[in-house]
């Protein structure tokens, strides 16, 4: 497939075409790096590039200005072909101050272009960054392609006639940087100007300053003769269709809403603010004309309990959180397991334990999702593997919860939540019908037994308050709830030892049976005779896929299985694993999935771990596989 890009009559004839580029904007957290990173991403998305992003910011809203701790960065990888990660190492680093330069320098390979705001290298800036010498002097940056640009002073100059206060003028320097990068990579200008216009409509001075700064950045690129020519990255030949750019938390929201609509159920979302899950609450709170009710609860426990109440009353009930919040919700989740009510828990994983790394990614809640409740309390676990795929994963979690009347854990993570990629907009009409029928009639003579089960799914009836004749009480105490083949399904309290054991087994069987209702293992083995299988789950999909491409480019064989369902596992997983001599399980934890598959299938799954709050690099996966291939 080829893409015809209309030739821009103003195109600089010296423009050099690249197939991909990785850019990292880095500055102080007050410098607006996330904002310009987002803008650059949106522009590139609308331009038709494939892309992946990696925002990285401190947990503090304003860490001390100018310090290493306060550095915020945004990496974007744009390309003219299908890509799967935000890129291992940037080609270009924009450093707004010494701290941003130093904090990011370790990730730069020789030859990387560094564009540095030279106005912020005064002695006090160096002091704040803890530097004793000025890195712009001497030859510590000799391996790089360094451009120093006085961004602050040019910005202040460009805005001085607008009547903007000097402090505000300085703050527009991020738009200068954006303008410069837009020139360097031949990005369209108008969408940025339109966006500034809309965003700052209420603040005309800031609007004017940002516009002036952006234009100054572009003009600087064009006229300064510092850079000899611009570059371009052509649109990518993605699958035909309509695209938009999406971050994982938004895709999760759309998936939940799509599920509620398909299920024809009102959506209730109860949650407590927590990074990096809060955006789900923010976004759902806007959708009032969908009939969606959101409640910001007094605490994490209440959020889960409120959702359970809403589920009892017949809503699609959802709560969202991150690790520390999930700890608190454990007891309520176990209640929902005992009540057998549909309930989706979204866990946007972050670095732990305790407060850990609130703004960084990790996938170390798998064991918590699997076993983090007292008693034998199994529940299905669904995991998203790319930002846009959060849509499908959220829909699937709701489908299972509704069909099997069970809480379902949806695992995403900080990288997926905030990372962006193009999304082939789904055809909502083509989504499966997951609607549910509430009980309407007594099911045991003229009585209603809340635990009289569907013999196939083992799900119990969902009878909602307001329905005559179906009044019933359910609770967390063990109950007579077998409700199969004539056994008692009354839900009355039962402390009988035999009944308890039968109930424990039945709840386990109900979840295990879901293996018959989920896809087989997602397996990528081009030739079918690879020796090494890489097994992954969640957001490592991108890194593993990119690593595999490198291996295959060497004409070596390697297979990749990626799990979207972690409980139950796909029913063919054991067979798949046993087919390979060597199994590598890369995870951003200390080997949680590898332990689960070793225990379940007695296979020698080798764990490969990274717990640094950032995704694996493709080269790390590549190197590890090469090692295994010998």
């Amino acid at each position, binding site marked *: 497939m080829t*893409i015809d890009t209309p030739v821009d009559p103003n195109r600089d004839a010296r423009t050099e075409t690249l197939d991909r580029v990785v850019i990292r904007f880095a500055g102080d957290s007050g410098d607006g790096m996330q904002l310009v990173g987002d803008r650059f991403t*949106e522009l590139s*998305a609308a*331009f*038709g590039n494939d892309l992946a992003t990696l925002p990285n910011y401190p947990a503090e809203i304003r860490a001390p200005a100018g310090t290493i701790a306060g550095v915020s960065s945004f990496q974007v990888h744009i390309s003219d072909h299908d890509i799967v990660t935000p890129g291992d190492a940037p080609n270009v680093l924009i450093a707004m101050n010494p701290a941003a330069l130093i904090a990011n320098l370790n990730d730069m390979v020789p030859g990387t272009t560094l564009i540095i705001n030279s106005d912020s290298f005064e002695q006090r800036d160096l002091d704040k960054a803890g530097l004793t010498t000025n890195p712009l002097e001497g030859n510590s940056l000799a391996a790089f392609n360094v451009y120093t640009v006085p961004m602050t002073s040019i910005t202040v100059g460009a805005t001085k006639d607008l009547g903007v206060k000097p402090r505000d003028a300085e703050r527009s320097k991020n738009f200068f940087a954006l303008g410069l990068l837009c020139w360097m990579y031949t990005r369209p200008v108008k*969408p940025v100007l339109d966006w500034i216009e809309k965003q700052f409509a209420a603040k005309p001075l800031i609007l004017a300053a940002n516009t002036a700064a952006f234009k100054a950045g572009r003009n600087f690129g064009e006229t300064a003769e510092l850079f000899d020519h611009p570059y371009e990255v052509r*649109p990518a*030949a993605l*699958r*035909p*269709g*309509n*695209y*938009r750019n999406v971050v994982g938390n938004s895709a999760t929201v*759309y998936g939940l*809403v*799509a599920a509620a*609509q398909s299920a024809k159920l*009102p959506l*209730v979302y*109860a949650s407590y603010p927590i990074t990096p899950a809060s955006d789900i609450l923010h976004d759902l709170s806007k*959708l*009032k*004309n*969908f*009939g969606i*009710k959101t*409640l910001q*609860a*007094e*605490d994490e*426990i*209440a959020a889960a*309990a*409120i959702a*359970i*109440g*809403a*589920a*009892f*009353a*017949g809503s699609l*009930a959802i709560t969202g959180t991150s690790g520390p919040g999930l700890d608190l919700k454990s*007891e*309520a989740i176990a*209640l929902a397991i005992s*009540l057998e009510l549909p309930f989706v828990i979204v866990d946007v994983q972050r670095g732990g334990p305790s407060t850990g790394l609130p703004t960084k990614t990790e996938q170390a809640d798998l064991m918590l999702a699997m076993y983090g409740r007292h008693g034998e309390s199994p529940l299905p676990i669904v995991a998203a593997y790319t930002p846009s795929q959060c849509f499908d994963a959220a829909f699937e979690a709701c489908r299972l919860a509704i069909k099997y009347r069970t809480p379902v854990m949806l695992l995403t993570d900080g990288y997926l939540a905030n990372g962006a990629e193009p999304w082939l*907009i789904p055809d*909502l009409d083509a989504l499966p019908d997951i609607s549910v029928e509430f009980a309407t009639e007594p099911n045991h003579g003229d009585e209603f037994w809340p635990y009289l089960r569907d013999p196939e799914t083992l799900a119990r009836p969902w009878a909602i*308050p*307001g*329905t*005559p004749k179906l*009044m*019933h*009480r*359910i*609770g*967390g105490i063990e109950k007579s709830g077998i409700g199969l083949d004539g056994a008692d399904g009354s839900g009355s*309290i039962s402390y009988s030892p035999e009944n308890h054991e039968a109930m424990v087994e039945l709840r386990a069987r109900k979840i295990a049976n879901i293996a018959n209702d989920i896809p087989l293992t997602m397996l990528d083995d081009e030739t079918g005779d690879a020796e090494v299988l890489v097994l992954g789950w969640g957001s490592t999909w991108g890194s593993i896929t990119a690593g595999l491409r490198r291996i295959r480019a060497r004409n070596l064989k390697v297979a990749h299985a990626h799990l979207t369902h972690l409980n139950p596992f796909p029913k063919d997983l054991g067979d798949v694993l046993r087919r390979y001599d060597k199994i590598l399980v890369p995870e951003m934890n200390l080997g949680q999935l590898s332990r689960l598959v070793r225990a379940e299938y007695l296979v020698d799954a080798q764990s490969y771990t990274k717990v640094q709050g950032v995704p694996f690099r493709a080269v790390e996966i590549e190197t590890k596989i090469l090692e295994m291939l010998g």
Partner: protein
Amino acid sequence: MTEEVVTLTKKDFESGEEARWCPGCGDYSILTAVQMLLPELDVKPENMVFISGIGCAARFPYYMRTYGVHGIHGRAPAIATGVALARPDLNVWVIGGDGDMLSIGGNHLIHALRRNVNLKIMMFNNQIYGLTKGQYSPTSEIGKVTKSTPFGSIDYPFNPLSVALGAEATFVARTHDMDRKHMQATFKRMHEHKGAAFVEVFQNCNVFNDGAFDGILKRDVRGDMLIQLTHGEPIRFGSEGQLGVAVNEFGEPRVVEVSAVGVEGLLVHDEHRADPTLAFALSRLANSPTMPTPVGVFRDVQRPIYEVEVQAQLAATLERNGPGDLAKIIASGATWTVE
């Protein structure tokens, strides 16, 4: 079409499940009072939901032929909030004890009251942990000797009504398990209130804290020890009507001899005062069940109901923007087409 008029009886509200409280427990009389009252209220059993946490009192929903959830310790007000949020048309009653609601669930209680969710919250206060076999509770008096306080409790207790009033409750009342009529009158008022209602029920735990309220509830002392609050009436009590409540020079209500201040000197009870100061002061007239203690409705005011406001925001947005269109929202930002 005419709807069949069915007269309900107490039996229609009995689940048939055998109640498992200790013989003689005060919970039985509260259950009977509620089951006898409900047929008089204009509610259908299918539109009633009883939600509870954990504890002796929390077994209550199992005995009601209504919808019910026996939840987890302390979380009943939150679970009930979810039910009411999802279905504002239902009558949601919340049952719990002093440990359940004021200790482990204190947070949920105060926030349900603050939000003014339309919940009818009944707290059976027996000043002890019953189900765990006799530890002191957040309403037990200082010095109480229990299994966990062999040398006497040094934990200063909560005054439940002060907590509720401090949490912005719009309806606050107190009754006790020895007087079915009083309970029913109080529960009826609670039911009629629109918004969050909190009722403290003095309840005797005859196994672990027997006679905790004897000092005010024994038949021969009740006259002098219970102060019935009646809206619009001077607050007056005593077997001969010889006692009353008047405000001192600091604005604090105090028990006085009527002869000392005259009837016109007595405080006239006003449930509807927007400012909760007086209700709060009345709640503190007695700080243990050894002093003359007010019962009845302390406060009954109107404030927007949480779930009604939620519904109103949905309706207003629907009116303004039309029904939500997910496909449109997904495609609302920048999109592009790959041919």
